[in-house]
């Protein structure tokens, strides 16, 4: 067992941190208030390699491993969780789905521009009636001459209003339930692919989230992604890995919130002393730091297993559950330590507190993680 980061991993953390502090930190609140993901960030993110972190170099990726991916997402989230969410959704959902289940031709054509950061990817599973119960989709895919016709609508799709490439799950065989769902690659500006209303959100506001309508949208046969009827099963595999990314995002967010609280506690004086000298504050900081450390290692272990080719359904769910709930707690205590200053937008605590709530909801709620863990746990003992 070796818990030390490699020399490359230390350098990676240093480089992404430098990038986040220089390029992202100055605009955090501006992007949050404007609710916009500036596309001008894409060449910068892509230039560093953050738009194709784990994909092979032949597709323009940086060919890093899952643990390295966690380090990248963590460092972005420490400064701006909304940008980290966009980067994680781009890498971990749309791009990862094409990489995992696409043909060689599909990877060359659709993954390479994503991995190089030419444009954003969007991954549309959720519908208004199919959130946690993602197997009960209503969007349909009807086989027609030369391809498919898709009809229906999606909700809460990250990057729906900005993406260049979409991966959309739809029912291709209604009789077969979750085994009748297929995945499709659709390029922006395809007739019948219509981005919907942009959500006005509590947090993660700089990350675009919107609906998506499919209005008799024709998709050529060579843009079916994976096998017919395997779309849902493949999507669950994508989420196994994606959840490690959300766990890393939660760890980084918590780290940022904790550092801000520590800074404030050492600077703020009340009753003639820095509030960090009061045991009540010290115990909060001690608990926050300890839980973050535990969440980080649970996350790295899931990533480490993934790097060794293991199916990590249970470990990913545990990491995502623990890290996101830890982050919610840390962000809340961060506000508390700031007192009134945690309630206003001049200090970072307020935004961490808003952003963090997504982590217990997106890519499977905490309740769904518990269902997954319980199912694995009970099955294993049976």
């Amino acid at each position, binding site marked *: 067992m070796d818990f030390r980061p490699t*020399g*490359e991993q230390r350098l990676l953390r240093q*480089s992404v941190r430098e990038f986040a502090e220089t390029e992202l930190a100055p605009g955090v609140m501006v992007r949050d208030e404007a609710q916009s993901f500036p596309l001008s960030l894409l060449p910068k993110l892509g230039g*560093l*390699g953050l738009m194709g972190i784990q994909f092979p170099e032949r597709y323009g990726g*940086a060919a890093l491993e899952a643990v390295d991916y966690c380090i990248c997402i963590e460092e972005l989230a420490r400064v701006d969780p909304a940008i980290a969410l966009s980067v994680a959704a781009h890498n971990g959902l749309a791009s990862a789905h094409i990489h995992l289940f696409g043909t060689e031709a599909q990877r060359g054509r659709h993954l390479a521009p994503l991995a190089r950061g030419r444009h954003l990817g969007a991954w549309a599973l959720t519908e208004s009636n199919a959130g946690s119960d993602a197997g009960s989709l209503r969007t349909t895919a009807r086989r027609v001459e030369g391809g498919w016709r898709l009809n229906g609508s999606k909700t809460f799709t990250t990057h729906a209003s900005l993406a260049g490439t979409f991966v959309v799950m739809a029912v291709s065989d209604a009789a077969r339930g979750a085994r009748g769902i297929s995945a499709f690659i659709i390029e922006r500006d395809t007739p019948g692919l219509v981005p919907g209303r942009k959500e006005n959100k509590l947090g993660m506001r700089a990350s675009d989230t919107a609906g998506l309508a499919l209005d008799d949208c024709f998709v050529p046969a060579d843009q079916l992604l994976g096998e017919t009827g395997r779309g849902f099963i493949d999507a669950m595999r994508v989420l196994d890995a994606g959840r490690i990314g959300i766990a890393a995002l939660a760890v980084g967010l918590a780290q940022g919130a904790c550092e801000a609280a520590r800074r404030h506690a050492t600077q703020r004086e009340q009753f003639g002393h820095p509030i960090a000298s009061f045991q009540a504050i010290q115990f909060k900081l001690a608990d926050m730091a300890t839980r973050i450390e535990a969440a980080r290692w649970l996350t790295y272990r899931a990533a480490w297993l993934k790097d060794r080719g293991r199916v990590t359904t249970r470990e990913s769910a545990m990491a995502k559950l623990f890290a996101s709930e830890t982050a919610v707690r840390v962000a809340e205590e961060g506000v508390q330590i700031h007192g009134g200053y945690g309630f206003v937008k001049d200090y970072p605590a307020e935004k961490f507190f808003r952003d963090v709530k997504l982590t217990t909801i997106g890519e499977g709620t905490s309740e769904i993680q518990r269902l997954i863990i319980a199912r694995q746990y009970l099955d294993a003992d049976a």
Partner: protein
Amino acid sequence: MKIAVCVKQVVTREWPLRVDEARTWVEDRDASFEMNEPDAYALEEALRLREQHGGEVVVCSAGPARAAQVVREALARGADRAIRVEGGGLAAADAAMVAEALAAAMRDEQFELVLTGLQSDDQGFAQTGVVLAELLGIPHATIIMEVQVADGRLRVKRELEGGWFQWVSMPTPALLTIQSGINQLRYATLKGIMAAKRKEVRVVEAAADLVPRQEILEIRVPEKTKQTHMIAGSPSEAAAELVKVLREEARVI
């Protein structure tokens, strides 16, 4: 152009400095380290010169084994290969000893241009580059703000005092000590970090007979003192007295 860049690993500026038990160096066992700041600008300048004129950038570093990390960083930012002179005694060595260790490893390479940082963030001698130039038998110029290369000659902008500059024309091979902040540093990209693993690093043992020219007897931390001097009298008398004190005692006006 065949360019060498010398980089040093130093304790990060955020590290809370404590004097070690022997009182001759800082306690750096658990410290975090980084690339000396002016050296990072020297590296960037070298990479830009390579982009304009072609050639090769070789990063050279003398230090203990942990200095491998700054070498890796330089390679990740884009240097082509590295020469690392390893020796336990080099961590706190004086400028002459470091320059001797570097010169021995660099001499055969026949570099056309050697860049170093202006000075190091730890001891701040601003001597290593100058001594190295002497040992390599090449001319040098210090505190360089801009480098132009044409027809095998250099035109460099030196920083003087009080906002003055000086342009100097000089032949190659030459050594320049680079000032901080003269260009914009690039990030080590994810691909650069991976590519660095495959680049050549020649590790050379420092010669056993290097002798320090300087001995640190004791490190003392400046003591902070504060004295409040109340000036009494009418406003005009107090102001006159204040000016007198500032001029004659504090010597700040």
